């Protein structure tokens, strides 16, 4: 019996699965997007470096059978969080549900990007940009206190483009922490603060 899937009637509302293609994956575009279509892994970007695993886990664990694995993005040199993570579910359906319904998410007052990922492999948790941070932070013109403080390229007038980073949400800019503005943080957050 055909499934209860009326969504198939409206083809024009079906968005492409992702606009980001990771060239360093060594996959052709077709292979890459095929992997995305069966993936159980999501990429979360634009996180605050102070956002804890517990925060991410608490929200994304509410889907289906829960989170299988959470891998925080880290600076290879310092070991510190650099504002992205991978979330792995047990099956594609759960990942799809999280992608559909936890998109447009605000975590720690930041608009978070939820995107498909081909799957974690060792080494992918490290930033590929300057100083071990993410590439997009290397091109940041405006300082973002919630992101790694990258000194290079600031003030050179180089504009940010999408080539080195993930798909941008159309309504946000690089320092988006909308919804009340940045509130001065009292101190480093303990992972145990819940």
């Amino acid at each position, binding site marked *: 019996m055909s499934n209860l899937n009326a969504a198939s009637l409206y083809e024009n509302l079906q968005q492409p699965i992702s606009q980001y293609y990771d060239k360093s994956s060594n996959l052709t575009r077709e292979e890459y997007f095929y992997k995305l279509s069966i993936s159980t892994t999501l990429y979360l970007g634009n996180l605050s470096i*102070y956002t804890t695993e517990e925060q991410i886990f*608490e*929200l994304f664990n509410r889907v289906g059978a829960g989170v299988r694995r959470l891998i925080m993005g880290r600076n290879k040199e310092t070991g510190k969080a650099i504002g992205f993570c991978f979330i792995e579910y047990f099956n594609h359906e759960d990942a799809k549900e999280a992608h559909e319904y936890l998109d447009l998410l605000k975590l720690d007052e930041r608009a978070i990007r939820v995107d498909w990922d081909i799957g974690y492999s060792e080494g992918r948790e490290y930033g590929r940009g300057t100083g071990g941070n993410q590439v997009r932070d290397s091109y940041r013109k405006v300082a973002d206190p919630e992101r790694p403080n990258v000194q290079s390229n600031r003030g050179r007038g180089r504009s940010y483009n999408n080539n080195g980073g993930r798909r941008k949400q159309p309504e946000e800019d690089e320092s988006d922490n909308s919804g009340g503005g940045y509130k001065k943080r009292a101190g480093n957050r303990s992972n*145990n603060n819940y």
Partner: protein
Amino acid sequence: MLQISHQIPPEINRIRQLICKAGDDGADTFKKDLQKIVDVLGEYYQQNKQEVKDAMIQSFIQCAKLLPLKAGIYATILALLSTKQTTQSLTDQIILGLLEHLPQIAQEETPILGQTILKFLSELMNVGLLNTVSFVECLYDLEGGAENEQSPFYLQILLTTLPHAMIKAMEKNQIEFKNIIQNVEVLMTKRKTEDRLFHLWQSIRNFLNNQEKDAHTQIFQQFLKTSYPRPYLLFPDEMTQVRQLRRGFKIPIVKRTQIWRPQQILVLNDEIRSQNSNKTDVQIEITRQWIYETIDLFKTNRQQIVFQFQLYQNCIKMSPTQEAQFRQTLIFTLLNMAIEVVPRKDQLSSAFYSGLLTHLSQRNSDSIKEWNETIEQFIDQIPQNNVLIIEQLSDCLSHYFCNSNFKLNWDKYFGKYNPDETDSFNNYLVIMIFRKLFLLVSVEKITDLVPKNIIDWYSQLQDITKPLDIEQHSLAEKINSYLQQKLNGVDMLEQLKLITNPNPETVIQTFLECLLQCISKSITHLNVLSKRYLSFLLQPNIIKPEKLGEIMLNTIFKMWNHSVFHLKVYLKEFLNLEVITNLQVINWLNDLIKQKPEVFKIYNVLIAINDVFRKQTKLDQVQDCTYESVKEINTILTKMIEQEQDVVIQSSLENIQLQILIAFKQTNGTQLEKLLKEIKSTNVKQIVMSF
């Protein structure tokens, strides 16, 4: 499928598009758009090409089945076509095609497709394409099906059809229709369940009893005049020329094996409801049915659910009162579905509901204040008999408030907290909502938005992970140094064996306490360290498994009895590693409840256990689901439920029992009957059998 494909001739694609998207352009040009569609389809039909006719038939079948908002639109198009040319075979084929699906639909898990098909057939009757006598015969068929089955599958289809058919049926075939209503009354009286079907039936019965007198009936009559669901009202002259089908048809009723349960409605939203007359507005019930159908049919694609709701709001011209009622019905229905804690096979996650609530409210940003007020009204009425309701609700609301820029009425929520009532349900609700909210956003980031009294209250409330009062300090120092050296499991075991202590259990206990302190730093620490060290503890001659389990459970409770999040995470991890078993967890729970700790700590544990068991079932990774262990778990839980005085704890224990039995059914269904014989409650049996 009706997607456009480049291999398919353009005219076929065009037909599919026209039919699928009929009415999508909104209310302003609605009549003209429909007329255009009829003209174009009429021209195609006149070409007399078989593939074109087949495309039209298949498109109508698919869309009538899957787009419940447009049943009236498709019926109107077919009616208008019939006035222009002989399209009797077209409508015939469509009806036959839909009826062919019904036996298969009857074996499905939900009656949604049956409902949408019957809704379409009732609209065919309303436009005059279908004879009223024939249609009422269909209702008899459904009623026969309903009489002969245990679960209300056919009854649901029958009841959801009645509001769309009753006006015409009463007008044209009153005696037979009243007969059906009397039979349904008998069926509904036998059911003693207050669920969605009950409320739907109440609304239909009240409407029929009070047709001319009631104010809310008049509201419904006004609603009936809105043209989007009933476009034939825009073509009164043409409808008099509709050529009726000559043939009647039968609804094929088949014997069903699956048990289906309607959703519960825990919080009602009928403002007109009064205790005396027990009225329910049929318009609300129709809207609620449509919401259920839309969610079920479009749940895999968020954008399309949102699109369907936008279509509804844009195309149906509602008065401000009707808009408010629609908004309330929508919010109440979503939240009711979110907090339905009795397990269901078609249950969606709390992230689904919170995500949908967030997206729908953002589409209606002008009325965020009204949205939030409606949510507050809902919360004021939630039943106070199950902590799982609080868990689900706080999941939903924390996500929603984070995404809606915290435009909640802080004082209203905090006002539910009464410091003089330490154990109250409302206090627990407030604590859970704020804990989950401030887990998703640090309170120091939004100090401008949160009243100071709440910040002060919360800062006193929250604890960091409690450091353990480790008795054996020198032993702990030694063990911590080994942990800092990142020894592997084997080396660690060797070091522990070298420690001289008259009681080996003390060594293991201290080791576990030190380990859990390390693990508490992050989830990554938990994953890495538990795999590194815990599995070696299961080796023979180190410690008895029962003792290990007991120490583990007591320690995690000591450290995190105030945090549902941590209890869930650690219970799940240790069950996966088989360091503890489901049976150990239940035994430990039994002992814990007997010790009578603070009641909120028990609530936290109950929520965590329920969640962990539920997720085991979802993954088909239920630990030790043998007949003997499940029987023992069931026996312990049954006794606990019978002895428990606190209704809240009792209902949560019942949920846990259901989770275990459902897990057993999934993994070992053949022995389930043996186990079910020992269970007295018919309700429990039915719930388990519905999986």
